[in-house]
């Protein structure tokens, strides 16, 4: 190890220590300074660590928690970037904190979620054993640009790690295309035809035309968004049969899903302990990743039924007599899944939507018009009222009004403290739908009232 790396590690540890003393998260800043001092620091530290990296638009954090649970159950020595600091700076900080001053990592394994735009810088240094790409949807167009641009970023990142085994979503035509022009070995996960009733083809598909030849895809079935059994009638590009295939979803409740997972032809019964179909994909991807790391598939199957995600992802709080669930939303695809989940709730409930437009949320909030808030009008009898909050509360109120919810059911409450106090007095269940930075603030307020973890624990 060189002297630059030594000082970079020292600096990073010092900065992190100081920010902890000052009660600031300090997840990204120390790594940023360390990388300035030693640009290939991550490569040096990651060299002997067996890493699983997870990228893609939706489901990174949840997939990482599932994989981590399998590692924990097997008693492996591992660490993870759990606080959502998923750019190269945050990932570097995490590696430094798990390494000695001499640059030797104390853990054998790592579970690293990586921002899709950061993949291009991270993967070449990280050299993961396994890379999971969950899916690609339109997300924060102001930051990432078009979805095909994000795909190219990931492709170029992976080209720096040719030894990595790719675990790709077979049902996402964009993600699956990564297998074709990279030298990496690739396996696929997906939901097979007939496992769930086919959804309808969305007019707002993020990938309606063939990534290879630009002709319109035909679909044998659709799970949600542009995911499903796609095929191009012109050039023949089509869904691969996944090695990790969900062949049946036998039950879906507000608590989770029961699925049958076929792995290289062997059938496993798995309970996914988070609701909604997108978590079935996350589970299949996690099982693929753990298995491709050379670990027992059984442990991964058990992990998807016992992991704890938290951090705003269908996270349950003992706030108010009816309980409070926090469901992070970031883009139309994820938001639609949450709305669909709410459509299945039969008891009376209150919905709180918090819309921010800061850097990490995306400064362009137009995506709320691509999400199917019209679904709220199908909740008549269950949805008691909608409270909107956040920096762009009024825009959210307008969106919900034009979806067809009468203005008298929509209330604006900008102050989180007042909001949380009000929820405390409710006997109905309350569902919170915040964007990322709203989630951080709102979660902190909720935890102050009813307890929970600080985010970097």
């Amino acid at each position: 190890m060189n002297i630059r790396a030594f000082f970079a590690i020292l600096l990073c540890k010092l900065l992190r220590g100081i920010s902890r003393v000052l009660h600031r998260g300090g997840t990204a800043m120390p790594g940023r300074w360390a990388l300035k001092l030693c640009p290939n620091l991550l490569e040096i530290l990651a060299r002997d660590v067996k890493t699983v990296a997870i990228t893609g638009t939706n489901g990174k954090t949840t997939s990482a928690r599932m994989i981590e649970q399998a590692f924990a159950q097997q008693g492996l020595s591992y660490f993870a970037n759990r606080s959502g600091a998923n750019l190269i700076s945050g990932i570097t900080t995490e590696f430094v904190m798990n390494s000695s001053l001499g640059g030797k990592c104390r853990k054998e394994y790592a579970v690293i979620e990586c921002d899709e735009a950061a993949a291009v810088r991270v993967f070449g240094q990280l050299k993961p054993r396994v890379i999971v790409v969950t899916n690609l949807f339109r997300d924060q167009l102001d930051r990432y640009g078009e979805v095909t641009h994000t795909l190219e970023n990931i492709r170029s990142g992976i080209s720096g790690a040719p030894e990595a085994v790719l675990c790709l979503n077979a049902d996402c035509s964009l993600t699956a295309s990564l297998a074709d022009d990279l030298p990496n070995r690739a396996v696929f996960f997906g939901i097979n035809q007939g496992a769930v009733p086919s959804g309808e083809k969305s007019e707002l598909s993020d990938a309606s035309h063939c990534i290879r030849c630009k002709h319109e895809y035909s679909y044998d079935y659709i799970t949600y968004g542009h995911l499903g059994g796609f095929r191009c009638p012109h050039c023949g590009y089509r869904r691969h049969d996944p090695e990790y295939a969900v062949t049946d979803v036998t039950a879906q409740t507000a608590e989770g899903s029961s699925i049958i997972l076929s792995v290289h032809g062997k059938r496993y019964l798995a309970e996914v302990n988070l609701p909604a179909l997108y978590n079935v994909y996350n589970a299949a991807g996690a099982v693929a990743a753990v298995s491709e790391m050379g670990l027992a598939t059984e442990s991964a199957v058990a992990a998807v039924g016992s992991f704890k995600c938290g951090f705003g992802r269908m996270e349950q709080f003992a706030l108010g007599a009816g309980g409070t669930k926090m469901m992070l939303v970031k883009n139309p695809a994820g938001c639609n899944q949450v709305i669909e989940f709410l459509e299945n709730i039969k008891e009376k409930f209150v919905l709180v939507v918090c819309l921010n437009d800061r850097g990490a949320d995306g400064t362009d909030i137009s995506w709320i018009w691509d999400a199917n808030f019209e679904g709220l009008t199908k909740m008549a009898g269950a949805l008691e009222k909608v409270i909107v909050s956040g920096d762009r509360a009024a825009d959210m109120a307008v969106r919900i009004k034009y979806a067809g919810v009468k203005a008298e059911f929509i209330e604006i409450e900008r102050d989180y403290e007042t909001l949380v106090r009000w929820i405390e007095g409710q006997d109905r269940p309350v569902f919170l739908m915040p964007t990322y930075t709203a989630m951080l603030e709102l979660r902190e307020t909720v935890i102050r009232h009813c307890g929970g973890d600080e985010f970097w624990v």
Partner: protein
Amino acid sequence: MKLKICHLYPDVLNLYGDGGNIRCLTQRLRWRGIDSEVVKMPIGSGESLVDCDLVFIGGGQDFEQQVLLDDLHRGRDRELRAAVEDGMTVLAICGGYQMLGNYYETHDGQRCDFIGALDLYTVGAKKRMIGNYLFRCDESLGGMTVVGFENHSGKTRLGSGVAPLGTVIRGFGNNGEDGTEGARYKNVFGCYCHGPMLPKNPAFADLLLSTALARRYGAAELAPLDDALERMAHDQMVKRLGGDV
């Protein structure tokens, strides 16, 4: 009364929530007891624009542009030009706005012919013009302020045959240089305003509706609506951008 609204190319020009403009128009008609019919005309649709009252064209991704051009050049371009000359009410945003112009030239000099319904052209720049922005419409449109989100790399220049839609107060507008935003010609309104534009600029939405209704029915008085939420969204962005409410 009834308006027939055409959503042109909803399959490829569907970025940044622009479809919300259609939702806004139909709801504001419905709340006033006026019927509407939305006709979607995707790529390959043979349906005619002729009996439509209002055409909406949104913005799209570069990825699908060639598919779109092929379709335009199969006759849709002629039809659009004729409709514009005939006084059709059109709202065109971003890519849809550029498409109505004469051509688009990439920053390395490749030219792509558009339909020439409006006397303007667009040249690609390296730096994207992104962010919340604010402009004031021409006095002939009552001088109303419009807020939205722009996100484009093309710089649009207006020819002598069209008037700017408004003057930029904060942001870039057509090109970030001459202070103009959008273009207006007959009953065509083109600009870079995503957001989507109409829900938080209800006066502009009503301007489009009354223009279309007047063409179909001679005159149109629109009953006032309770726009308290819409105005709040509008005014907050005006304030954030340092304009006067």
